[in-house]
């Protein structure tokens, strides 16, 4: 039995982009979040922060346009928008940790019903692993959105009662955008805000490791 359709990675990014308010200062993490800049609504202007000391990052550099002194946190050559600024890495993280970023969007391996995030290390993976800026950003952003698939490739829930992967931060996630749902993490629990077309909360709950609540029937995810 083929599964009902899920959002693509690009659609997750598209839906997450709709969460960004006009004028917001935003940090985008690795993975799906890095696709978000392509899906900003036309009337929304946001300012992208990079933890290597850039505010006002523009699109990625086109072939021939690359300057390797101007890279983002993924080491990819980028461009600037007018009004950009540079600062050192401690000031960059003062911004992320000190509550100056309006929104940060990170990828996730697991999110708990309390909003704990695990996104930096897979247990048993080879090599050193690496934290990067994720812990500072998770701890400090005014609003933290996590973009991820709803389940692992094997079909296990990535939204769980308690994270089993190494943690990035405690009670830091505000909103989850997955390939099946938009979910807000509230003191009372996980509140289903929107659901993928063709899915219902019962079907979704089976793929979710923690109880979902809903205020009435959750509307379908739509794209602006």
């Amino acid at each position, binding site marked *: 039995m083929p599964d009902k359709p899920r959002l693509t990675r690009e659609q997750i990014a598209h839906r997450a982009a709709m969460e960004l308010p006009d004028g917001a200062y935003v940090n985008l993490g690795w993975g799906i979040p890095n696709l978000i800049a392509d899906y900003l609504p036309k009337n929304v202007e946001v300012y992208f922060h990079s933890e290597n000391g850039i505010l006002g990052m523009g699109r990625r550099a086109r072939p021939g346009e690359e300057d390797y002194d101007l890279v983002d946190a993924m080491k990819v050559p980028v461009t600037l928008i007018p009004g950009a600024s540079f600062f050192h890495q401690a000031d960059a993280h*003062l911004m992320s940790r000190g509550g100056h970023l309006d929104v940060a969007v990170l990828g996730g391996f697991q999110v708990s019903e309390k909003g704990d995030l695990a996104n930096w290390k897979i247990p048993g993976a080879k090599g050193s692993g690496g934290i990067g800026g994720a812990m500072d950003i998770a701890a400090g952003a005014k609003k933290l959105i996590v973009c991820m698939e709803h389940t692992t490739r094997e079909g296990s829930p990535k939204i769980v009662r308690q994270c089993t992967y190494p943690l990035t931060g405690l009670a830091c996630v505000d909103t989850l955008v997955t390939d099946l749902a938009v979910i807000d993490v509230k003191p009372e629990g996980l509140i289903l805000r929107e659901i993928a077309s063709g899915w219902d909360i019962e079907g979704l709950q089976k793929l979710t490791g923690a109880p979902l609540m809903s205020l009435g029937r959750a509307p379908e995810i739509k794209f602006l």
Partner: protein
Amino acid sequence: MRNKIHPTLDSAVGDIRDGARIMFGGFGGAGFPNNLIQALARKGTKDITAISNNCGTRDGELGLMFKNGQIRHVIASFPGPHSNYFQEKLAAKKVTLELVPQGILCERMRAAAAGLCAFYTTVGVGTEVAAGKEERTIEGKRCILEMPIHADYALIKAETADELGNLTYRLAARNFNPIMAMAATTTIVEVDEIVPVGAIKPEHVVTPAIFVHRIVQAKGVRYAG
């Protein structure tokens, strides 16, 4: 795009309510937001907690705030012998004072800006400023615990803002202003000049726009005293 530019000084400070915690930039006559201070005097906000290196002079800087009785508590490093209105109010017990070493004043504001919970320093150990503070020995050094200083507003002065709020400062008028801009919830800057977006080279920005919430152009009032 959020419009951060306010048409008047009065609108820029229009929502500052009684009891607000406010940082005021400036040092030694340079970089004081004198026009914003005058607007706050006109507004008449009371019971202010003021965080500032000095407490002004007879006619200048924060002096007006004390003359008007708008400030209830001060956190400062050097109120100053010429801060006559402050000294009068302090003597009359109408104002309370927390004296903080100047660098620790900066560092406590920066801790607030950077989302740090507290820090240990050797500065002030064994002196009056250590009173009531936790002391311990770290790596063989006696040190005391200092807490962040948060504020609702920072009133600062810069030379130039672009329309997004990137700031540059003139000479030593920089002083406390960039630190306070980072530390306060809402930063209001008076500037000599507002320039188009892109007019400031990204490497030359001193205070990035993320820290600036309201911009107002003001003809500078300056006090040498």
